Protein backbone atom coordinates (compact mmCIF):
# COMPACT_ATOMS: atom_id res chain seq x y z
CA UNK A 1 0.00 0.00 0.00
CA UNK A 2 1.43 3.38 -1.00
CA UNK A 3 0.86 6.22 1.38
CA UNK A 4 -1.31 8.99 -0.08
CA UNK A 5 0.03 12.48 -0.71
CA UNK A 6 -0.24 14.55 2.47
CA UNK A 7 -2.50 17.16 0.88
CA UNK A 8 -5.25 14.61 0.51
CA UNK A 9 -5.15 13.60 4.15
CA UNK A 10 -8.08 14.89 6.17
CA UNK A 11 -7.09 13.17 9.36
CA UNK A 12 -3.75 11.90 10.43
CA UNK A 13 -3.20 10.27 13.78
CA UNK A 14 0.29 9.49 14.97
CA UNK A 15 1.26 7.22 17.85
CA UNK A 16 -1.81 8.01 19.93
CA UNK A 17 -1.65 6.59 23.45
CA UNK A 18 -4.36 6.78 26.09
CA UNK A 19 -4.73 5.05 29.43
CA UNK A 20 -7.08 5.27 32.37
CA UNK A 21 -5.24 4.75 35.62
CA UNK A 22 -3.22 1.67 34.78
CA UNK A 23 -5.51 0.44 32.04
CA UNK A 24 -4.18 0.97 28.53
CA UNK A 25 -6.93 1.86 26.07
CA UNK A 26 -4.78 2.95 23.15
CA UNK A 27 -1.14 1.99 22.73
CA UNK A 28 0.36 4.07 19.97
CA UNK A 29 -2.29 3.97 17.25
CA UNK A 30 -1.71 5.40 13.77
CA UNK A 31 -4.53 6.24 11.42
CA UNK A 32 -4.65 8.07 8.13
CA UNK A 33 -7.87 9.08 6.46
CA UNK A 34 -8.02 10.48 2.95
CA UNK A 35 -10.50 13.11 1.88
CA UNK A 36 -13.81 11.84 0.56
CA UNK A 37 -13.40 8.27 1.77
CA UNK A 38 -15.27 6.07 4.19
CA UNK A 39 -12.99 4.41 6.72
CA UNK A 40 -13.99 1.64 9.04
CA UNK A 41 -12.65 0.98 12.52
CA UNK A 42 -13.22 -2.59 13.59
CA UNK A 43 -12.02 -4.84 16.34
CA UNK A 44 -13.31 -6.97 19.18
CA UNK A 45 -15.05 -5.38 22.15
CA UNK A 46 -12.68 -3.34 24.28
CA UNK A 47 -10.24 -2.89 21.42
CA UNK A 48 -10.20 0.88 21.86
CA UNK A 49 -12.38 1.93 18.91
CA UNK A 50 -14.65 4.23 20.84
CA UNK A 51 -11.68 5.55 22.83
CA UNK A 52 -10.04 6.51 19.56
CA UNK A 53 -13.19 8.27 18.38
CA UNK A 54 -13.46 10.06 21.71
CA UNK A 55 -9.90 11.30 21.31
CA UNK A 56 -10.64 12.63 17.84
CA UNK A 57 -13.78 14.37 19.12
CA UNK A 58 -11.88 15.73 22.10
CA UNK A 59 -13.75 14.00 24.88
CA UNK A 60 -10.62 12.15 25.98
CA UNK A 61 -7.18 13.71 26.19
CA UNK A 62 -4.51 11.30 24.91
CA UNK A 63 -1.33 11.11 27.00
CA UNK A 64 0.86 11.17 23.94
CA UNK A 65 0.70 11.27 20.17
CA UNK A 66 -0.77 13.73 17.71
CA UNK A 67 -4.08 14.25 15.98
CA UNK A 68 -3.81 16.35 12.83
CA UNK A 69 -7.03 17.46 11.16
CA UNK A 70 -6.75 19.21 7.79
CA UNK A 71 -3.13 20.03 8.44
CA UNK A 72 -3.76 21.48 11.90
CA UNK A 73 -2.67 19.83 15.14
CA UNK A 74 -5.86 19.60 17.18
CA UNK A 75 -4.59 17.30 19.93
CA UNK A 76 -5.01 20.01 22.56
CA UNK A 77 -8.04 21.82 21.11
CA UNK A 78 -10.94 21.70 23.63
CA UNK A 79 -13.88 19.48 22.64
CA UNK A 80 -16.30 22.38 22.38
CA UNK A 81 -14.16 24.09 19.72
CA UNK A 82 -13.82 21.09 17.43
CA UNK A 83 -17.24 21.18 15.77
CA UNK A 84 -16.48 24.66 14.44
CA UNK A 85 -13.42 23.19 12.70
CA UNK A 86 -15.57 20.72 10.77
CA UNK A 87 -15.76 17.66 13.02
CA UNK A 88 -19.06 16.01 13.92
CA UNK A 89 -20.00 12.76 15.54
CA UNK A 90 -22.77 10.43 16.59
CA UNK A 91 -22.76 8.37 19.76
CA UNK A 92 -22.74 4.64 20.39
CA UNK A 93 -25.56 4.88 22.91
CA UNK A 94 -27.58 7.72 21.44
CA UNK A 95 -27.12 11.08 23.10
CA UNK A 96 -30.06 13.14 21.88
CA UNK A 97 -31.52 15.89 24.03
CA UNK A 98 -34.63 14.27 25.40
CA UNK A 99 -36.40 17.50 26.31
CA UNK A 100 -36.37 18.87 22.76
CA UNK A 101 -38.25 18.13 19.58
CA UNK A 102 -36.58 16.44 16.64
CA UNK A 103 -36.37 19.78 14.86
CA UNK A 104 -34.69 21.53 17.81
CA UNK A 105 -32.25 18.66 18.25
CA UNK A 106 -31.20 19.05 14.63
CA UNK A 107 -31.00 22.84 14.89
CA UNK A 108 -28.81 22.46 17.93
CA UNK A 109 -26.21 20.79 15.74
CA UNK A 110 -25.67 24.10 13.92
CA UNK A 111 -24.97 25.88 17.22
CA UNK A 112 -21.34 26.73 16.55
CA UNK A 113 -22.08 28.16 13.11
CA UNK A 114 -24.68 30.61 14.43
CA UNK A 115 -23.99 33.97 15.98
CA UNK A 116 -27.03 35.27 17.84
CA UNK A 117 -26.00 36.51 21.29
CA UNK A 118 -28.03 36.69 24.46
CA UNK A 119 -29.30 40.23 23.99
CA UNK A 120 -30.39 39.84 20.38
CA UNK A 121 -32.01 36.54 21.37
CA UNK A 122 -34.07 38.18 24.13
CA UNK A 123 -35.19 40.94 21.80
CA UNK A 124 -35.45 38.57 18.82
CA UNK A 125 -33.87 41.21 16.60
CA UNK A 126 -34.13 41.19 12.82
CA UNK A 127 -30.70 39.52 12.66
CA UNK A 128 -31.75 36.77 15.05
CA UNK A 129 -34.95 36.21 13.10
CA UNK A 130 -33.09 36.08 9.78
CA UNK A 131 -30.55 33.62 11.18
CA UNK A 132 -33.27 31.33 12.50
CA UNK A 133 -35.22 31.46 9.24
CA UNK A 134 -32.13 30.67 7.18
CA UNK A 135 -31.31 27.81 9.53
CA UNK A 136 -34.79 26.40 9.30
CA UNK A 137 -34.63 26.44 5.53
CA UNK A 138 -31.21 24.81 5.48
CA UNK A 139 -32.33 22.12 7.90
CA UNK A 140 -35.48 21.41 5.90
CA UNK A 141 -33.75 21.33 2.54
CA UNK A 142 -30.46 19.61 3.31
CA UNK A 143 -31.31 17.38 6.23
CA UNK A 144 -34.95 16.68 6.93
CA UNK A 145 -35.82 16.03 3.27
CA UNK A 146 -32.64 14.09 2.70
CA UNK A 147 -33.10 11.77 5.68
CA UNK A 148 -36.85 11.43 5.07
CA UNK A 149 -37.95 12.52 8.52
CA UNK A 150 -40.48 15.22 7.57
CA UNK A 151 -43.16 13.51 9.63
CA UNK A 152 -41.07 13.60 12.81
CA UNK A 153 -40.18 17.32 13.01
CA UNK A 154 -42.31 18.18 16.02
CA UNK A 155 -42.16 14.84 17.80
CA UNK A 156 -40.25 14.62 21.04
CA UNK A 157 -37.17 12.46 20.52
CA UNK A 158 -38.02 10.30 23.52
CA UNK A 159 -41.07 8.97 21.67
CA UNK A 160 -39.09 7.68 18.68
CA UNK A 161 -37.95 4.13 17.98
CA UNK A 162 -34.30 3.29 18.39
CA UNK A 163 -33.68 3.26 14.64
CA UNK A 164 -35.31 6.66 14.16
CA UNK A 165 -33.37 8.11 17.07
CA UNK A 166 -30.17 7.03 15.34
CA UNK A 167 -31.38 8.76 12.20
CA UNK A 168 -32.09 11.98 14.12
CA UNK A 169 -28.62 11.77 15.60
CA UNK A 170 -27.20 11.56 12.10
CA UNK A 171 -29.37 14.56 11.17
CA UNK A 172 -27.99 16.55 14.08
CA UNK A 173 -24.43 15.63 13.08
CA UNK A 174 -25.14 16.81 9.52
CA UNK A 175 -26.42 20.13 10.88
CA UNK A 176 -22.93 20.60 12.30
CA UNK A 177 -21.82 21.01 8.64
CA UNK A 178 -18.97 18.53 9.06
CA UNK A 179 -16.11 17.83 6.72
CA UNK A 180 -15.24 14.79 8.81
CA UNK A 181 -18.08 12.74 10.25
CA UNK A 182 -17.44 10.22 13.02
CA UNK A 183 -20.10 7.54 13.40
CA UNK A 184 -20.04 5.24 16.42
CA UNK A 185 -21.95 2.07 15.47
CA UNK A 186 -24.48 3.82 13.23
CA UNK A 187 -26.47 0.66 12.51
CA UNK A 188 -26.12 -1.37 15.69
CA UNK A 189 -29.48 -2.66 16.85
CA UNK A 190 -31.33 -1.82 13.63
CA UNK A 191 -33.57 -4.08 11.61
CA UNK A 192 -32.73 -4.94 8.02
CA UNK A 193 -34.72 -2.15 6.43
CA UNK A 194 -33.35 0.48 8.76
CA UNK A 195 -29.84 -0.85 8.13
CA UNK A 196 -30.25 -0.50 4.38
CA UNK A 197 -31.59 3.04 4.73
CA UNK A 198 -28.73 4.06 6.97
CA UNK A 199 -26.11 2.52 4.67
CA UNK A 200 -27.63 4.43 1.75
CA UNK A 201 -27.55 7.69 3.72
CA UNK A 202 -23.90 7.20 4.65
CA UNK A 203 -22.96 6.53 1.04
CA UNK A 204 -24.92 9.58 -0.13
CA UNK A 205 -23.27 11.78 2.46
CA UNK A 206 -19.91 10.71 1.18
CA UNK A 207 -20.67 10.77 -2.54
CA UNK A 208 -22.93 13.79 -2.86
CA UNK A 209 -21.49 16.03 -0.18
CA UNK A 210 -17.89 14.93 -0.22
CA UNK A 211 -17.91 14.42 3.54
CA UNK A 212 -15.20 12.12 4.84
CA UNK A 213 -16.57 9.42 7.13
CA UNK A 214 -14.94 7.36 9.87
CA UNK A 215 -17.21 4.72 11.32
CA UNK A 216 -17.09 2.02 13.96
CA UNK A 217 -19.25 -0.97 13.19
CA UNK A 218 -19.57 -4.58 14.18
CA UNK A 219 -21.61 -5.66 11.18
CA UNK A 220 -18.84 -6.92 8.89
CA UNK A 221 -21.09 -7.10 5.85
CA UNK A 222 -21.86 -3.43 6.08
CA UNK A 223 -18.26 -2.50 6.79
CA UNK A 224 -17.04 -4.42 3.78
CA UNK A 225 -19.72 -2.89 1.54
CA UNK A 226 -19.29 0.72 2.64
CA UNK A 227 -15.68 1.24 3.49
CA UNK A 228 -12.80 2.17 1.22
CA UNK A 229 -10.33 1.45 3.96
CA UNK A 230 -10.47 -0.56 7.16
CA UNK A 231 -8.33 -0.34 10.30
CA UNK A 232 -8.38 -3.17 12.80
CA UNK A 233 -7.71 -2.53 16.46
CA UNK A 234 -7.11 -5.12 19.13
CA UNK A 235 -6.22 -4.35 22.76
CA UNK A 236 -5.46 -0.74 21.89
CA UNK A 237 -3.12 -1.59 19.07
CA UNK A 238 -3.52 -1.43 15.35
CA UNK A 239 -3.09 -4.95 14.02
CA UNK A 240 -4.01 -4.40 10.39
CA UNK A 241 -5.04 -1.74 7.89
CA UNK A 242 -5.92 -1.77 4.23
CA UNK A 243 -8.79 -2.34 1.85
CA UNK A 244 -11.62 -4.51 3.12
CA UNK A 245 -10.37 -7.43 1.05
CA UNK A 246 -6.83 -7.13 2.34
CA UNK A 247 -8.00 -6.96 5.92
CA UNK A 248 -10.30 -9.92 5.55
CA UNK A 249 -7.44 -12.01 4.26
CA UNK A 250 -5.10 -11.02 7.08
CA UNK A 251 -4.46 -14.02 9.34
CA UNK A 252 -3.86 -11.82 12.38
CA UNK A 253 -7.30 -10.30 12.06
CA UNK A 254 -8.86 -13.72 11.91
CA UNK A 255 -6.98 -14.69 15.05
CA UNK A 256 -8.08 -11.53 16.92
CA UNK A 257 -11.67 -12.27 16.10
CA UNK A 258 -11.62 -15.98 16.89
CA UNK A 259 -13.97 -16.77 19.68
CA UNK A 260 -15.41 -13.28 19.68
CA UNK A 261 -18.61 -12.05 18.18
CA UNK A 262 -17.73 -10.12 15.09
CA UNK A 263 -18.37 -12.54 12.30
CA UNK A 264 -21.57 -10.77 11.21
Amino acid at each position, binding site marked *: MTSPPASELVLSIEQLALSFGGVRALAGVDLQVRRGTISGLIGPNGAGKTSLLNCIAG*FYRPQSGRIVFEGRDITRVPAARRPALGLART*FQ*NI*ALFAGMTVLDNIKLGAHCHLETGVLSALAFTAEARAEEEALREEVERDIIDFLEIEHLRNRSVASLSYGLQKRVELARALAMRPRLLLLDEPIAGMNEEETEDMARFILDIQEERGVTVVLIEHDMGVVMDLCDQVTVLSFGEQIAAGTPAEVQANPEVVRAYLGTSGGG
Partner: protein
Amino acid sequence: MDEFLQIAVSGVVTGGIYALIAIGFVIVYKATGVINFATGELMMLGAFFAWTAMAVAKLPFAVALLLAALGAAGVGALVERVVLRPMLGQRPISIIMVTIGLSAVFKGIAQVVWGGEYRSFPAIFPRKPIELGPVILPSRQAWPFLIALAAIVLLAALFRFTRTGTAMRATANDQATAFGMGIDIRRVFSFSWVLAAVTAALAGVVVGVIGGISPQLGAVGLRIFPVVILGGLDSIGGALVGGVVMGVLENLAGGYLDPLFPGAGIKEVAPFFALVLILMVRPWGLFGTREIERL
Protein backbone atom coordinates in the same frame (compact mmCIF):
# COMPACT_ATOMS: atom_id res chain seq x y z
CA MET B 1 -6.07 30.71 77.19
CA ASP B 2 -8.78 29.52 79.53
CA GLU B 3 -11.29 31.53 77.58
CA PHE B 4 -10.08 29.89 74.38
CA LEU B 5 -10.40 26.44 75.94
CA GLN B 6 -13.87 27.23 77.21
CA ILE B 7 -14.97 28.38 73.75
CA ALA B 8 -13.31 25.41 72.06
CA VAL B 9 -14.93 22.91 74.40
CA SER B 10 -18.39 24.33 73.99
CA GLY B 11 -17.65 24.27 70.25
CA VAL B 12 -16.96 20.56 70.50
CA VAL B 13 -20.27 20.12 72.32
CA THR B 14 -22.17 21.97 69.58
CA GLY B 15 -20.13 20.09 67.02
CA GLY B 16 -20.99 16.70 68.49
CA ILE B 17 -24.65 17.52 68.08
CA TYR B 18 -24.12 18.78 64.54
CA ALA B 19 -22.29 15.55 63.83
CA LEU B 20 -25.27 13.49 64.99
CA ILE B 21 -27.68 15.50 62.80
CA ALA B 22 -25.29 15.27 59.88
CA ILE B 23 -24.98 11.50 60.22
CA GLY B 24 -28.74 11.14 59.74
CA PHE B 25 -28.43 13.26 56.62
CA VAL B 26 -25.46 11.34 55.27
CA ILE B 27 -27.13 7.96 55.82
CA VAL B 28 -29.93 8.91 53.45
CA TYR B 29 -27.63 10.55 50.93
CA LYS B 30 -25.23 7.61 50.91
CA ALA B 31 -27.87 4.95 50.44
CA THR B 32 -30.39 6.73 48.22
CA GLY B 33 -28.69 9.82 46.77
CA VAL B 34 -31.34 12.10 48.24
CA ILE B 35 -30.46 15.48 49.77
CA ASN B 36 -32.87 15.54 52.67
CA PHE B 37 -34.01 19.08 53.41
CA ALA B 38 -36.53 17.70 55.88
CA THR B 39 -33.83 16.54 58.31
CA GLY B 40 -34.50 19.51 60.58
CA GLU B 41 -38.24 18.87 60.64
CA LEU B 42 -37.68 15.17 61.40
CA MET B 43 -35.66 16.36 64.39
CA MET B 44 -38.46 18.66 65.42
CA LEU B 45 -41.04 15.87 65.22
CA GLY B 46 -38.84 13.52 67.24
CA ALA B 47 -38.33 16.16 69.89
CA PHE B 48 -42.08 16.74 70.15
CA PHE B 49 -42.72 12.98 70.46
CA ALA B 50 -40.30 12.80 73.38
CA TRP B 51 -41.67 15.98 74.94
CA THR B 52 -45.25 14.69 74.74
CA ALA B 53 -44.24 11.41 76.37
CA MET B 54 -42.53 13.23 79.22
CA ALA B 55 -44.57 16.37 79.80
CA VAL B 56 -48.02 15.01 78.96
CA ALA B 57 -47.82 11.27 79.68
CA LYS B 58 -45.30 11.79 82.52
CA LEU B 59 -43.11 8.92 81.33
CA PRO B 60 -39.45 8.67 82.34
CA PHE B 61 -36.83 10.08 79.97
CA ALA B 62 -35.50 6.72 78.76
CA VAL B 63 -38.98 5.56 77.77
CA ALA B 64 -39.68 8.88 76.10
CA LEU B 65 -36.49 8.56 74.10
CA LEU B 66 -37.50 5.08 72.97
CA LEU B 67 -41.00 6.23 71.99
CA ALA B 68 -39.57 9.19 70.08
CA ALA B 69 -37.29 6.80 68.19
CA LEU B 70 -40.19 4.47 67.38
CA GLY B 71 -42.42 7.34 66.26
CA ALA B 72 -39.69 8.77 64.07
CA ALA B 73 -39.04 5.32 62.59
CA GLY B 74 -42.68 5.16 61.57
CA VAL B 75 -42.53 8.60 59.97
CA GLY B 76 -39.32 7.71 58.15
CA ALA B 77 -40.74 4.49 56.75
CA LEU B 78 -43.94 6.22 55.67
CA VAL B 79 -42.10 9.06 53.94
CA GLU B 80 -39.87 6.67 52.05
CA ARG B 81 -42.69 4.41 50.95
CA VAL B 82 -45.30 7.04 50.03
CA VAL B 83 -43.28 9.96 48.75
CA LEU B 84 -39.71 9.08 47.87
CA ARG B 85 -40.12 5.70 46.26
CA PRO B 86 -42.33 7.04 43.46
CA MET B 87 -39.70 9.73 42.87
CA LEU B 88 -36.88 7.24 42.25
CA GLY B 89 -34.73 8.31 39.31
CA GLN B 90 -36.20 11.82 39.03
CA ARG B 91 -34.08 14.91 38.54
CA PRO B 92 -32.20 16.24 41.59
CA ILE B 93 -34.31 19.41 41.60
CA SER B 94 -37.48 17.36 41.98
CA ILE B 95 -36.06 15.26 44.79
CA ILE B 96 -34.73 18.28 46.67
CA MET B 97 -38.08 20.00 46.30
CA VAL B 98 -40.07 17.02 47.47
CA THR B 99 -38.12 16.97 50.73
CA ILE B 100 -38.61 20.73 51.07
CA GLY B 101 -42.34 20.20 50.54
CA LEU B 102 -42.31 17.52 53.22
CA SER B 103 -40.59 19.86 55.64
CA ALA B 104 -43.35 22.46 55.17
CA VAL B 105 -46.01 19.80 55.75
CA PHE B 106 -44.28 18.59 58.93
CA LYS B 107 -43.96 22.12 60.25
CA GLY B 108 -47.64 22.76 59.62
CA ILE B 109 -48.72 19.52 61.26
CA ALA B 110 -46.57 20.22 64.32
CA GLN B 111 -48.17 23.65 64.66
CA VAL B 112 -51.63 22.12 64.47
CA VAL B 113 -50.89 19.35 66.97
CA TRP B 114 -48.62 21.13 69.47
CA GLY B 115 -49.31 24.80 68.77
CA GLY B 116 -46.75 27.42 67.92
CA GLU B 117 -45.50 28.18 71.44
CA TYR B 118 -42.07 27.59 72.79
CA ARG B 119 -41.81 24.69 75.27
CA SER B 120 -39.05 23.29 77.38
CA PHE B 121 -38.35 19.78 78.61
CA PRO B 122 -38.90 18.95 82.28
CA ALA B 123 -35.63 18.87 84.24
CA ILE B 124 -33.96 15.54 83.53
CA PHE B 125 -30.33 15.66 84.47
CA PRO B 126 -28.47 16.50 87.68
CA ARG B 127 -28.00 20.25 87.92
CA LYS B 128 -24.35 20.11 88.90
CA PRO B 129 -22.13 21.45 86.10
CA ILE B 130 -19.32 19.20 84.95
CA GLU B 131 -15.81 20.51 85.45
CA LEU B 132 -13.00 19.47 83.15
CA GLY B 133 -9.95 21.22 84.57
CA PRO B 134 -10.40 24.92 83.87
CA VAL B 135 -13.43 24.29 81.65
CA ILE B 136 -16.90 24.30 83.10
CA LEU B 137 -19.74 22.67 81.20
CA PRO B 138 -23.32 23.37 82.30
CA SER B 139 -25.14 20.08 82.81
CA ARG B 140 -27.81 21.14 80.30
CA GLN B 141 -25.08 20.88 77.65
CA ALA B 142 -22.92 18.11 78.99
CA TRP B 143 -25.53 15.39 79.33
CA PRO B 144 -27.17 15.82 75.93
CA PHE B 145 -23.69 15.84 74.43
CA LEU B 146 -23.02 12.46 76.03
CA ILE B 147 -26.28 11.14 74.59
CA ALA B 148 -25.26 12.38 71.15
CA LEU B 149 -21.89 10.71 71.55
CA ALA B 150 -23.48 7.42 72.59
CA ALA B 151 -25.83 7.55 69.60
CA ILE B 152 -22.91 8.15 67.24
CA VAL B 153 -20.98 5.18 68.66
CA LEU B 154 -24.06 3.01 68.37
CA LEU B 155 -24.62 3.99 64.73
CA ALA B 156 -21.01 3.36 63.84
CA ALA B 157 -21.23 -0.09 65.41
CA LEU B 158 -24.44 -0.80 63.53
CA PHE B 159 -22.80 0.05 60.22
CA ARG B 160 -19.66 -1.88 60.89
CA PHE B 161 -20.90 -5.05 62.58
CA THR B 162 -24.45 -5.91 61.53
CA ARG B 163 -25.73 -7.59 58.38
CA THR B 164 -28.03 -4.69 57.61
CA GLY B 165 -25.16 -2.28 58.01
CA THR B 166 -23.08 -4.29 55.57
CA ALA B 167 -25.96 -4.39 53.10
CA MET B 168 -26.28 -0.61 53.38
CA ARG B 169 -22.61 -0.08 52.79
CA ALA B 170 -22.66 -2.42 49.82
CA THR B 171 -25.64 -0.62 48.31
CA ALA B 172 -24.00 2.74 48.79
CA ASN B 173 -20.92 1.42 47.05
CA ASP B 174 -22.55 -0.02 43.99
CA GLN B 175 -26.29 -0.38 43.69
CA ALA B 176 -26.33 -2.69 40.70
CA THR B 177 -23.81 -5.11 42.17
CA ALA B 178 -25.49 -5.11 45.56
CA PHE B 179 -28.75 -5.98 43.82
CA GLY B 180 -27.01 -8.74 41.94
CA MET B 181 -25.69 -10.15 45.20
CA GLY B 182 -29.23 -10.60 46.40
CA ILE B 183 -29.51 -7.52 48.60
CA ASP B 184 -33.04 -6.18 48.69
CA ILE B 185 -32.41 -2.57 47.69
CA ARG B 186 -35.89 -1.40 48.50
CA ARG B 187 -35.46 -2.67 52.04
CA VAL B 188 -32.13 -0.90 52.29
CA PHE B 189 -33.71 2.37 51.07
CA SER B 190 -36.55 2.00 53.50
CA PHE B 191 -34.24 1.10 56.36
CA SER B 192 -31.92 4.02 55.68
CA TRP B 193 -34.86 6.43 55.94
CA VAL B 194 -35.95 4.79 59.18
CA LEU B 195 -32.44 5.02 60.56
CA ALA B 196 -32.06 8.63 59.42
CA ALA B 197 -35.37 9.57 61.03
CA VAL B 198 -34.42 7.88 64.31
CA THR B 199 -31.04 9.62 64.28
CA ALA B 200 -32.75 12.93 63.58
CA ALA B 201 -35.21 12.30 66.43
CA LEU B 202 -32.40 11.65 68.89
CA ALA B 203 -30.65 14.80 67.67
CA GLY B 204 -33.93 16.67 68.05
CA VAL B 205 -34.31 15.55 71.64
CA VAL B 206 -30.73 16.57 72.37
CA VAL B 207 -31.23 20.03 70.84
CA GLY B 208 -34.63 20.36 72.52
CA VAL B 209 -33.31 19.47 75.98
CA ILE B 210 -30.61 22.12 75.62
CA GLY B 211 -32.65 24.94 74.20
CA GLY B 212 -36.35 24.09 74.27
CA ILE B 213 -38.60 23.18 71.35
CA SER B 214 -41.06 24.77 68.95
CA PRO B 215 -42.18 23.99 65.40
CA GLN B 216 -39.34 26.32 64.30
CA LEU B 217 -36.71 23.94 65.69
CA GLY B 218 -36.23 22.48 62.22
CA ALA B 219 -34.37 25.63 61.17
CA VAL B 220 -31.27 24.07 62.76
CA GLY B 221 -31.38 21.66 59.83
CA LEU B 222 -29.81 24.30 57.58
CA ARG B 223 -26.70 24.25 59.71
CA ILE B 224 -25.79 20.75 58.58
CA PHE B 225 -24.92 21.84 55.04
CA PRO B 226 -21.55 23.36 55.95
CA VAL B 227 -20.90 20.24 58.04
CA VAL B 228 -21.66 17.67 55.37
CA ILE B 229 -19.91 19.61 52.64
CA LEU B 230 -16.77 19.86 54.75
CA GLY B 231 -16.85 16.17 55.66
CA GLY B 232 -18.04 14.93 52.27
CA LEU B 233 -21.70 14.25 51.46
CA ASP B 234 -21.25 10.50 51.54
CA SER B 235 -18.91 10.03 54.45
CA ILE B 236 -20.11 9.18 57.95
CA GLY B 237 -16.67 9.76 59.41
CA GLY B 238 -16.63 13.04 57.52
CA ALA B 239 -19.89 14.07 59.16
CA LEU B 240 -18.25 13.50 62.53
CA VAL B 241 -15.13 15.52 61.75
CA GLY B 242 -17.13 18.16 59.89
CA GLY B 243 -19.54 18.54 62.78
CA VAL B 244 -16.83 19.09 65.34
CA VAL B 245 -14.84 21.48 63.10
CA MET B 246 -17.90 23.58 62.26
CA GLY B 247 -19.05 23.62 65.87
CA VAL B 248 -15.67 24.90 67.01
CA LEU B 249 -15.41 27.38 64.12
CA GLU B 250 -18.85 28.75 64.86
CA ASN B 251 -18.08 29.18 68.57
CA LEU B 252 -14.72 30.79 67.86
CA ALA B 253 -16.36 33.21 65.42
CA GLY B 254 -19.01 33.89 68.05
CA GLY B 255 -16.46 34.30 70.84
CA TYR B 256 -13.93 36.50 69.09
CA LEU B 257 -15.68 38.24 66.18
CA ASP B 258 -19.15 38.93 67.52
CA PRO B 259 -17.89 41.25 70.29
CA LEU B 260 -16.10 43.29 67.59
CA PHE B 261 -19.23 43.61 65.46
CA PRO B 262 -22.09 43.67 67.93
CA GLY B 263 -25.38 42.41 66.60
CA ALA B 264 -23.91 41.18 63.34
CA GLY B 265 -24.48 37.52 64.17
CA ILE B 266 -21.21 36.37 62.63
CA LYS B 267 -21.54 33.14 64.58
CA GLU B 268 -24.53 32.17 62.46
CA VAL B 269 -23.07 33.05 59.09
CA ALA B 270 -19.42 32.02 59.51
CA PRO B 271 -20.05 28.34 58.63
CA PHE B 272 -21.64 29.44 55.34
CA PHE B 273 -18.61 31.49 54.37
CA ALA B 274 -16.56 28.37 55.11
CA LEU B 275 -19.01 26.38 52.99
CA VAL B 276 -18.46 28.62 49.96
CA LEU B 277 -14.72 28.34 50.42
CA ILE B 278 -14.85 24.54 50.56
CA LEU B 279 -17.05 24.36 47.46
CA MET B 280 -14.52 26.44 45.55
CA VAL B 281 -11.49 24.46 46.63
CA ARG B 282 -12.61 20.90 47.22
CA PRO B 283 -16.34 20.43 46.60
CA TRP B 284 -16.30 16.75 47.54
CA GLY B 285 -15.03 17.63 51.00
CA LEU B 286 -12.44 15.98 53.19
CA PHE B 287 -13.60 12.39 52.89
CA GLY B 288 -16.23 12.40 50.12
CA THR B 289 -16.07 10.56 46.83
CA ARG B 290 -15.07 12.52 43.79
CA GLU B 291 -17.65 11.99 41.08
CA ILE B 292 -16.43 10.60 37.80
CA GLU B 293 -17.86 12.00 34.57
CA ARG B 294 -19.35 9.57 32.09
CA LEU B 295 -21.12 10.04 28.79
